[in-house]
């Protein structure tokens, strides 16, 4: 450790102002702080600080993403072989899955981080850790057969238009990973929807429809069992299929206090309420499916745990989070059932509520302001 530190200290002057590589200061700082927590001490205010920092926060989220990722890798292989009527051992499935998923992850990270570093450099900022999470989220919401160049431009779009134009991590309005997905969804709809994209290198004769795809044409009979939807052995985006893997991730987020349980619970409540309302209405078969099935199909669980809880694009007040979450669940199921063009409502519901989150906060805060003004008036009177 000492030798490493000495090496870093030796290089440091080259990257500081007046040094040979001063233009690369942000890059150097990113690598240095990756290796070492800085030696900066407090000068004003509280003399002691909590051990948590943005790196710790983000690495916990990445950790929470590992279960759906691992399951996704396996499932990509499993679905592929299943469509060809084969049932190989565990490792060939993992091998095939890795072959498909790893390149997507690498492309996402390399593209995103390159842009992040470039922006940090240009602005003279430190490199933000936010993309560590976005870079993992983006592959997990992609169909397994997505072309890599699409991943690259979607990531670039998300980082530049979704985040950096607003000022970087913490300033963005929309969730960057969902921005990437929405971009592909609208720019290349044939690669992002339909029945042919959810299984990698699918056999042509095999139906690759997701549960949501089945329901869209009212094929309720073809719906997989609850158990396989909960377990995740169904076609879908890489990380979204397994509710149980996502629940493990949710447990990590809630136990560490990084993810907002408030939001997760209210999204689920919103989805259930809308599902039950449809049950009451019951105008078609889609409306009649049990409300809980909405929670284990498509991207609902994934969106609830990893996307809706993004603290930057979510509502910021505690009360606001309840409304925000509830409306996401509510609108997601609404879009699913009502809009034939969008089989999955979760992505659009979250993006929509991202936009409305500041408004929700505004009303929550206004009620606090009004209370204060009323109290002042009562005294003055």
């Amino acid at each position, binding site marked *: 450790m000492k030798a490493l530190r000495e090496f870093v200290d030796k290089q440091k002057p080259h990257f500081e102002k007046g040094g040979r590589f001063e233009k690369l200061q942000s890059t150097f700082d990113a690598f240095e702080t990756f290796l070492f927590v800085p*030696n900066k001490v407090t000068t004003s205010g509280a003399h002691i600080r909590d051990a948590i920092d943005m790196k710790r*926060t983000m690495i916990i989220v990445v950790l929470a993403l590992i279960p759906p990722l691992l399951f996704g890798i396996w499932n990509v292989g499993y679905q592929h072989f299943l469509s060809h009527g084969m049932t190989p051992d565990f490792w060939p499935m993992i091998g095939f899955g890795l072959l498909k998923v790893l390149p997507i992850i690498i492309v996402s990270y390399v593209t995103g981080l390159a842009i992040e570093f470039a922006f940090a450099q240009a602005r003279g900022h430190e490199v933000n850790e936010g993309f560590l999470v976005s870079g993992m989220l983006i592959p997990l919401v992609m169909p397994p057969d997505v072309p890599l160049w699409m991943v690259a431009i979607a990531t670039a779009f998300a980082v530049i238009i979704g985040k950096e134009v607003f000022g970087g991590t913490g300033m963005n309005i929309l969730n960057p990973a969902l921005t990437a997905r929405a971009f592909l969804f609208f720019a290349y709809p044939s690669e992002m929807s339909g029945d042919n994209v959810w299984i990698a290198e699918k056999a042509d004769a095999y139906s690759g429809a997701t549960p949501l795809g089945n329901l869209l044409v009212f094929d309720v009979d073809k719906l997989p069992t609850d158990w396989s939807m909960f377990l995740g052995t169904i076609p879908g985006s890489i990380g979204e299929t397994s509710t149980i893997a996502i629940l493990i991730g949710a447990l990590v987020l809630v136990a560490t206090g990084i993810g907002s349980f408030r939001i997760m619970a209210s999204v689920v409540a919103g989805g259930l309420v809308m599902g039950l309302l449809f049950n009451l209405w019951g105008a078609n078969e889609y409306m009649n499916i049990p409300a809980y099935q909405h929670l284990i199909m498509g991207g609902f669980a994934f969106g609830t745990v990893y996307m809706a809880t993004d603290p930057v694009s979510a509502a910021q007040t505690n009360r606001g989070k309840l409304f925000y979450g509830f409306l996401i669940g509510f609108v997601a199921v609404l879009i699913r059932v009502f809009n034939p063009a969008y089989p999955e409502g979760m992505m659009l519901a979250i993006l929509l509520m991202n936009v409305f989150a500041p408004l929700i906060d505004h009303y929550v805060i206004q009620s606090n302001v009004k209370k204060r003004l009323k109290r002042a008036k009562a005294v003055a009177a």
Partner: protein
Amino acid sequence: MSTVTKIKKGLDIKLIGEAEKTIKDLVTDQFAIKPTDFIGVFPKILVKEGDTVKAGTPIFIDKYRDNIVFTSQVSGTIKEIKRGAKRVLLEIRIEADGKDEAIDFKAEDPKTLNRDKVIQKLLDSGIWPFIRQRPYSVIANPADIPKAIFISTFDTAPLAPDNDLIVHGHGNIFQLGLDALSQLTKGKIHLNIDANATHSKVFTNSKGVQINQFSGPHPAGNVGVQINKIDPLNKGEVIWYLYPQDVLTIGRLFATGKYDATRVLALTGSEVLHPAYYKTKVGAAIEPLVKGNVSDTEKRIISGNVLTGTKIELDGYIGFYHSQVTIIPEGNYYELFGWALPGFNKFSISRTFPTFLFKNKRFRLDTNYHGGERALVMTGQYEKVFPFDIYPMQLLKAIMVEDIDLMENLGIYEVDEEDFALCEVIDTSKTNIQEIVRKGLNLMRKEMS
């Protein structure tokens, strides 16, 4: 007795180095007054180096409120007038002569005096600066009539001194101080005690005050929290506040006619070998206090507590308002993969470190930031340790953009930087929140005057 106000949000940070409950005498002849202790005061100096002074001799006044006088706490000679950049007055160092001579302001029963007389006496003797006001936490304006006076008798900050011990045996003086204060307001004097920890009869038998009980974690002992729960401040209102030792100082003025600046302070922190209480006077030099009683590591000496105190050097002096000194290790080291390792010794409220499992563990914390400064990404964190009916992050952002109306609407008059100290400690983005809040308060004060 009255009902107990329960504070639920907050955090008790358990540190190593609590003071042993014995009071020793601190022998020193070095004292100082630091104009920088007084927020918003522009000092105009009245003495020069070599002048002899008595306890109660004016040293400087506030240029813009010239009836507010700051006096010497001891008898002796002015040893040095220390200035900093741009000739800012930093310290007026006084060497005590040990004679304890004091100007006689006359011993009187405050009950026989009217408000103006009481105020004049406090102003003349230099005791007035102990009385501060909310909003802004500046020295109270004698022309104001406060709607109430708040005294917090318990301190919930880490390693804070135990006021029960400090006031023990001074019941009559304390009551005399309260009698004087009761002339200053038409409203109530709120004496706030800890429902579980305050046992001293000095507090519980006080007369002419309303005793309020509080329970819960820090910041339950902060006067700002207590005001918020008992009698919240509205725009245009003023509340005065002070602490038990200040009441004793006022009591002694009326009992003896002298400015007796005796203070008991707690020497605390993990780097102190024998943490204990010391009896000295306001503004004592730190060196004799720590000599031979601290560890060999590189240290941070804090006048006050770890949340709100001021960093002082070894040749520095204890602050005017402080009755605690905390000494903790400096944190100027690099830590390899510190953010990724489990961290079995790290303090965090977040449960991302395994130490959250050990609720009663005491920590030896240093001054390291534990990370780089970032944008405000996480939400809902501050609310966990901020027991006001105020949106802390929104208020903070309003201050950052200097939106006066919004700051006012979000409740800036009700808070002080110390109320945000815990938010600052637990903040993932490592923002210097107290500094921002102070800027906001200063801005409001300027706008409102």
